[in-house]
C-alpha cells in the first residue's frame, strides 16, 4: 500500500474510530441495554463496520423512558 492510499484512507479510519469510541464510552457507563446482552453489543459495534455503531447508538441503549 503506497503513502497516497494510506493518507486517503486515514480520514475514513478516523471517522469509523470516532463512532466506535463514542459507542465504547457509552457502553462502559451504561447498565441497561435493549435486545441483546451487554457483551453482545460490544461485539456488534466493534466488529460490524458502520452499521454496528449506528444500530447500537439508535437501538442498543435503554433509557429511563424504555420499559
Amino acid at each position, binding site marked *: 500500500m503506497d503513502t497516497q492510499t494510506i493518507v486517503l484512507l486515514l480520514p475514513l479510519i478516523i*471517522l469509523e474510530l470516532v463512532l466506535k469510541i463514542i459507542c465504547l464510552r457509552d457502553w462502559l457507563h451504561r447498565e441497561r441495554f435493549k435486545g441483546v446482552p451487554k457483551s453482545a453489543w460490544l461485539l456488534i459495534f466493534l466488529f460490524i463496520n458502520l452499521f454496528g*455503531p449506528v444500530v447500537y447508538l439508535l437501538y442498543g441503549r435503554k433509557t429511563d423512558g424504555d*420499559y
Partner: protein
Amino acid sequence: MTFLEKSIVKKEILEMVRTSRLLIWTVVCMIIGIVSPLTAYYLPDIISAFGATENIAISFGKITYQDSVEQYIKNFGQIGTIVLILMMMGSVAGEKVDGSVQFLLVRPVGTISILVAKFVSLLVLLVTGLLGSMLTMGFYTWYLFPGFPGFRFIYANLFLFLYFFAIGIITIAISASVRKPILAGIGTLGVWLLASIMGAIRSIGPFSFAKLPEQVIQTIEGFPFEWQPIVGTAILLCLFILAGTMLFNRWEPND
C-alpha cells in the same frame, strides 16, 4: 410561531443531538463521501487483484469523475436511505411508546405543531449531513479525478436533498400513523421499494421520487433536469403529510 412551538422545535433539535442522530447521520454522510470516490478510483486495482488469482486479465476503460458520482448515488441510495429510515422510524411512534407525545399533548400544543417540529429537525439533520458529504466527496473527487465540475456538483446535490427529504417525511408521516417504530420502518421500506419498482414503468415511472438521485448524475453531466420526479415527489409528500396528520389527530393515547 408561538413560544411553545419554538420550544418544541428546539426540543426536537436537542433530542437529535442527545440521541446521537445528528452525529450518526453526519458521520455516515461523510463516510459515503469518502468511500464513493475511493471505490471508483481503486476499483480496477481491486478487480485486477481478484482476477490475478484466477489468471484472468481484466481491462478497464478510463475511470472518470462520473464513476465516482455514480458510486456516490448508489451508496446514498442504499446505505443512506436505510440509515435515514432507521433513524426516523421512531420519531413519533417511539415517543408514543415511551409516553413523551402524551406528555406534550396535555399542553396547548397541536399534533400539527409536533409534526412541523419534526420536519424542521429533519431539515437541520439533512442539511448538516449533506454538507459533510459534499465536502468530503467534493474534495476526494477533485483530488483523484481531473475535470470534476464542483459547482454543478453542489447544485446537483439539491436533488439528493429532495430525495432524502421525501424519505424522511414519509417515515415521519407513517411513524405518526402507527403505534410501533418497527411498523413505520417496514412501511417506509415498502413505499421506497414500490417507488423503485414504479420507476421502471414507462407511463408513471418518471414521476417516482426514486428517480431523483438519477437527476444528480444528469445535472453534473450538464443535461437539463427533468421536472416529473419533482412534481411526483411534491404530490406524494402532500398526500403523506395530509394522511399522517389526519391519522395522528385521530390517535388516542390510551389506544
